[in-house]
């Protein structure tokens, strides 16, 4: 029980926020209307993705200095789990955009930058596949991962601020500022973020353990 409490907490939080997010009342804002509920599903995906990619970078740094294979596996599995959340984030965003902006993909700066940062991590996976030798692969991909991470931060947090976007929270569109005042939404949004981050971390640990087991059985 002591070891699994956070998994239960994550599962309960996600179930709670899914139900509450769809049923509880929300403030009615211009343009957004009921689609504001997507906040509970779309935004936590990005939080989970960033947490997982951060884990990955940390383990890349560790694996560079420790040269242990296990740290490398941790890094790559964190990326794998993070990419799942990134794609889910793109999909939830695109479905939402279909109903508010009228198109799944309208080449809004935020959409583009998010897609490019996912590409960055696909490049990381391609790089891993291109190298056969294990130790070399661990080293080079760790270096690329550390090199790419600051670029992802620039892509997701700096560049969108400089361009005009239709995305909520940008340039006077209703978004973060207006929901912040509403305590009903806060009660669902924060648990949703925490819950999805925990679930993401859980997926990552499961992937990591299966990978370790696979490696053992292959020996």
């Amino acid at each position: 029980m002591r070891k699994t409490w956070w998994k239960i907490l994550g599962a309960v939080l996600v179930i709670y926020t899914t139900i509450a997010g769809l049923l509880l009342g929300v403030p009615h804002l211009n343009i957004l209307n009921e689609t504001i509920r997507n906040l509970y599903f779309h935004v936590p995906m990005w939080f989970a993705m960033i947490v997982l990619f951060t884990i990955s970078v940390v383990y890349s740094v560790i694996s560079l200095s420790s040269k242990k294979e296990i740290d490398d596996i941790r890094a790559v599995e964190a990326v794998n789990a993070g990419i799942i959340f990134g794609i889910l984030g793109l999909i939830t965003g695109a479905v939402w955009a279909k109903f508010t902006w009228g198109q799944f993909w309208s080449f809004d700066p935020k959409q583009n930058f998010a897609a490019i940062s996912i590409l960055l991590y696909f490049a990381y996976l391609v790089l891993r596949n291109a190298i056969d030798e294990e130790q070399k692969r661990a080293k080079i991909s760790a270096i690329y991962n550390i090199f790419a991470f600051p670029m992802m931060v620039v892509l997701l947090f700096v560049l969108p601020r400089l361009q005009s976007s239709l995305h909520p929270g940008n340039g006077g569109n209703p978004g973060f500022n207006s929901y912040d005042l509403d305590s009903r939404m806060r009660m669902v949004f924060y648990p949703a973020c925490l819950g999805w981050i925990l679930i993401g971390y859980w997926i990552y640990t499961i992937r990591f353990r299966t990978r370790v087991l696979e490696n053992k059985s292959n020996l």
Partner: protein
Amino acid sequence: MLLEWRNKYALNGVLLYVVSTVFVCYLSFVTVEKLTWNALFWIIMLFASINAVAKSFLQESKGRHLYIYTLVSPISLIIAKTVYNSLLMIVLTIIALLFYSMVFEFPEGTDVLMYLVAAIVGSLSFATIFTMVSAIASKAGNGGMLMAILSFPIIIPVLIVLVKLAKNAIDGLDRSVSLDDVGLLLLINAMVMGVSLILFPYLWRD
């Protein structure tokens, strides 16, 4: 280490590449609008710089790597390579811009000086980023293909800022508008440079 100048034929080759690309573009477009003018220039520069900078690590043999390894520390090597590539790119960019503006005239109302600044800052970022990525790609041992895959996602954000900055210059906007972008680019440059300085020693020793 700055004796990389020996590879002069590389510079000539890339120059010829740029000139012939511009010429082909001229033959196919004849006249271009403002927006296309800008986009075309950066596309030409992007591919020219990949060709120019990728040579720095990819073309060297294993034996030569070993030879250099015994001579100098990795930090001075990456600094030398980056400085050399930056100079190469600046020269290349200026020549390309000259030739490009000869073939396609500057659109009316362009702030030429600002455009030059944008081009030079851009060539610097191309040089720093591609130097590190080509080092990674050469160690992975899979040449040009990997180089493109690894570098494009990294270069796209820089390219977006660059195109915006250059667009400002073409439209002849007030210079204070563009200062933020120049600052951001220099910041990204410094960041990339710092990260490669830290990481390159790990990459270099086998």
